[in-house]
């Protein structure tokens, strides 16, 4: 009941904000509103009992997405100058799609129906067998890292390839002098060094953000968290530092070779665990053989591959941010 009340509030707000995004012709406004959109989305995920997803959306939406979009806006344009073309074709298409979907959902099981098909299929098996086979409290982590480890490997490689794409599109401009004199810094506008309050508070928070990222990384077996969220959090810490001190300083803190190395190393670690478990007589990504005790082997495997995921995501987010910020100062 309470869930439904909150959902009504949040979902209606979601639609209103989406309409607002659609109607504005100022891209800056659209980016700000999509920040609100992602916040509502995260609260909604939390209400629907998806704590891990809510954490991911929160970290990505608040820490990374806005910064990336603003970086892109700074490099392109601030206004949407779409001509007022005949809008009835897209209107017709999208309302036809919406009509079909609404018609289809009339037969769907209501929210929270325990007899829905999704709850009868493989999910009970995961929930029943996780304590026995893997023995970590967070079933989401167990499914993510062990039961559906192939999926996650694929996702890690998608992120990896996206990062390569960004690097080949934006990166590797002839590196200008990255070591910049102290007084030259004061003339630049791509940092917040003149703003003492953000600088002091922000730099104070950077270690806490990274520390919390590590907590989320290694506490992921017991609470909401894991490699994906931790990676985004640590990257958010580095991004905060780069915003405060300027791009070059950020690249001194985490050099580009290091973040690219992290990207590759994470994916490599993940694959290696699979290959090692094959070499030790199991199947690909079957961690049970990693140790004499199958459950202990699962623990080890999950720990290592989560670390791999965390490394890759951290590296990807930092590399993407550096690519955009470096482009800005050409």
């Amino acid at each position, binding site marked *: 009941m309470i869930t439904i009340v909150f*959902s009504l509030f949040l979902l209606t707000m*979601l639609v209103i904000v989406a309409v607002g995004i659609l109607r504005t012709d100022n891209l800056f406004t659209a980016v700000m509103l999509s920040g609100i*959109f992602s916040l509502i989305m995260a609260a909604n995920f939390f209400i629907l009992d998806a704590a*891990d997803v809510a954490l991911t959306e929160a970290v990505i939406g608040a820490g990374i997405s806005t910064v990336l979009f603003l970086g892109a806006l700074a490099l392109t*344009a601030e206004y949407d100058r779409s001509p007022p073309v005949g809008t009835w074709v897209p209107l017709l298409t*999208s309302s036809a*799609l919406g009509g079909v979907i609404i018609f289809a959902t009339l037969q769907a099981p209501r929210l929270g129906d325990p007899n829905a098909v999704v709850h009868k299929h493989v999910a009970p098996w995961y929930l029943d067998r996780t304590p026995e086979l893997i023995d970590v409290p967070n079933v989401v982590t167990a499914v993510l890292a062990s039961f559906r480890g192939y999926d996650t490997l694929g996702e890690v490689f998608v992120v990896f390839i996206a990062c390569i794409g960004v690097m080949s599109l934006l990166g590797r401009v002839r590196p200008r002098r990255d070591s910049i004199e102290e007084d030259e810094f004061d003339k630049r506008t791509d940092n917040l060094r003149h703003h003492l309050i953000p600088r002091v508070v922000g730099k104070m928070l950077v270690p806490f953000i990274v520390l919390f990222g590590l907590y989320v990384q290694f506490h992921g077996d017991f609470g*909401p968290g894991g490699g994906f969220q931790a990676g985004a959090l640590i990257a958010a810490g580095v991004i905060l530092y780069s915003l405060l001190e300027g791009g070059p300083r950020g690249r001194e803190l985490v050099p580009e070779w290091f973040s690219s190395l992290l990207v590759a190393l994470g994916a490599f670690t993940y694959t290696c665990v699979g290959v090692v478990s094959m070499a030790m007589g199991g199947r690909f990504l079957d961690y049970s053989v990693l140790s004499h005790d199958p459950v202990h082997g699962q623990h080890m495997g999950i720990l290592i591959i989560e670390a791999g995921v965390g490394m890759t995501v951290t590296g990807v987010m930092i590399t993407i941010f550096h690519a955009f910020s470096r482009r800005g100062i050409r």
Partner: protein
Amino acid sequence: MAVLGLYNYFIFAVLLMIGLYCILARTNIIKSLIGLTIFQGAVFLLYISTDKIDGGTAPIIQEGVENQIFANPLPQVLILTAIVVGISTTALALAVTVRIKEAYGTIEEDKIQEMDREL
């Protein structure tokens, strides 16, 4: 009550419509991308809506609590990774947009097509 139980799906449909309309009707590339993120969000919402179960809680087993009902972990796993993949692919698209701006001087699709035709 029955309609309220389906509210999530209706919102999913409406968000999908808004996102699709934004992609189709606007010629500005960044605006289309923001429409795409709305579209993505709608799909995330659909998946997460299916995991809810009455009287359930997030699928993290608590010590010393018996007979808890847990939400379905599978959609959560899929969407958790999809969010991170989504932001990376959006970043890739933004990178392409930046290159288009550098090459053409605009990010309006119709103007770009005009320029292409002139060549």
